[in-house]
């Protein structure tokens, strides 16, 4: 089957994709004005947050094959930077987003620079250490309230939105769309195919002219940037920032969601994020919040053993397509 045929309608007709994106944005922006359903916005915030995190993780983890075990650290850094700027200097969400993106991009670049020479294994351990270190730093930093953290009083919602959480809905939709679009461009670009070649065989990639170090550095930076964006609105959602937000659960989910959805594809992380967030919301309400983490852990084991291509890989095998990467399913 020709690879061209495997690209979906949206991917091969960018105009349609653009229209869909704008449509989603418009609906998302208008809906909260009309429908005031705070519970829905609270739930969807978390789902969208994970869509962003999973997509960001996938850029370095799924495309290049470098597993990040410390997504919580990046997320937390983004949240702290954004929260601190608002709490101390009264700078709003936009400033928070920009600053968080910059800080986390820098962190991604730093970690990438230090470890891109090494095997992915050492990168993974380094990311775990970084996230732990970030938590230790914040626990000991008086400017952010050390282990107590600080409270955030949200600004009044921009009219005509009924509440700030309602306003955050289109914001998160927008960030999610940006990260998915960025991921999509990456997938189809020269940069993307370079990353895939690095994942397949880094030595061969280097030998055919792929500047592996530079590409890895860029991918790590991009991945960090989007994780920072995922964390930036968090202070406005939770209204409280403390070192506890650098929770291991976030790191676990950031690995599990792309894995279960389908690493290395565009929609895999999105599918995984939506599915797992939904399961976790249901489980934490009906059973308990740690059972849902247990479920994720079990799913990680099951999928890494039996279905490393994730749900998308299973789907593709069922309908008879070869498992090539770089496709939106």
């Amino acid at each position: 089957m020709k690879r061209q045929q495997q690209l979906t309608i949206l991917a091969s007709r960018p105009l349609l994709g653009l229209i869909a994106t704008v449509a989603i944005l418009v609906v998302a922006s208008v809906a909260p004005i009309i429908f005031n359903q705070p519970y829905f916005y609270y739930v969807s915030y978390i789902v969208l947050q994970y869509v962003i995190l999973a997509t960001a993780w996938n850029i370095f983890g799924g495309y290049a094959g470098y597993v990040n075990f410390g997504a919580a650290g990046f997320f937390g850094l983004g949240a702290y930077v954004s929260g601190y700027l608002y709490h101390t200097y009264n700078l709003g969400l936009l400033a928070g987003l920009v600053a968080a993106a910059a800080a986390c991009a820098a962190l991604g670049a730093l970690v990438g620079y230090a470890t891109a020479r090494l095997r992915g294994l050492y990168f993974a351990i380094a990311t775990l250490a970084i996230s732990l270190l970030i938590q230790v730093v914040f626990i000991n930093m008086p400017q952010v309230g050390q282990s107590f953290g600080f409270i955030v009083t949200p600004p009044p919602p921009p009219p005509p939105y009924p509440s700030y959480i309602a306003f955050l809905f289109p914001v998160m939709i927008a960030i999610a769309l940006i990260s998915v679009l960025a991921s999509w461009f990456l997938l189809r670009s020269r940069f993307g195919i370079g990353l895939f070649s690095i994942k397949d065989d880094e030595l061969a990639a280097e030998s055919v002219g792929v500047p592996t170090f530079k590409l890895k550095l860029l991918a790590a930076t991009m991945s960090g940037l989007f994780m920072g964006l995922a964390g930036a609105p968090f202070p406005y959602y939770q209204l409280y920032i403390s070192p506890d937000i650098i929770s291991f659960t976030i790191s676990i989910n950031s690995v599990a969601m792309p894995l279960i959805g389908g690493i290395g594809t565009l929609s895999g992380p999105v599918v995984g994020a939506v599915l797992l967030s939904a399961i976790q919301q249901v489980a934490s309400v009906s059973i308990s919040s740690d059972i849902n983490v247990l479920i994720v852990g079990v799913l990680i084991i099951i999928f890494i053993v039996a279905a490393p291509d994730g749900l998308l890989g299973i789907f593709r095998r069922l309908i008879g397509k070869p498992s090539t990467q770089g496709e939106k399913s």
Partner: protein
Amino acid sequence: MTDDGGDFLSATHIFKSFGGIKALTDVSFKLKKGERVGLIGPNGSGKTTLLNIISGVFKPDSGRVVFEQTDITTRPAHARTEMGIARTFQVPRPFQTLSLLDNVKIAVMYGSRDHKKTKSGSSRASDTAKNLLKRLGLEPKEQTLPKELTQIDMRKMELARALAVGPKLLLLDEVMAGLTSDEVDEVLKILLSIHEEGITIVMVEHIMRAIMNFCERIVVLSEGRQIASGTTNEIANDREVIRVYLGE
């Protein structure tokens, strides 16, 4: 024993050890532009290591590698590829999740000297890759995944990928290993046509027929040292070479 070196490529006084194993000891290897040179020797003599040092997979412990008057001793492999040094691998290393066409296309996109003008979606990279596959008889298989390719197809893919970067120097690491006699001839024909385009070729091989038919000059390594260098005839009759290959 003459060393007809040249200033196209020169690797001088190369030393390389891995742990306690001395892979190369004071090896100097020079090439003139347009030569067809064979690099032979028993297993473990350092041939692949030498290729790896020229192509940039390893850096030598000491010694220099100069290509077209530029010192490339510490340059990363991808930079050398852009300068025009291409290689094939002893055991083919395809990108398993990319189609045959994409395997070659990526080399065009990244390795060719004017790659900066080539975008992923541009038809130029696709066309160049398709033409290469056509030349090597692989066109019908362009959408197949590497795991479905035969041994000779994979060797040809390695060649196509190496050619895709538009090389000036082509390093072949046992490209004929495991091929039938007919297939060896097929590859030899391809290599000769490549050479006619002005590409300098270094061939590491165990298949003597290929070496004798293809190479003008042969360098012999044994246990990390160069023990002979000369024309095909000279080497065929060199007592030291015979001893090293056949034992006393």
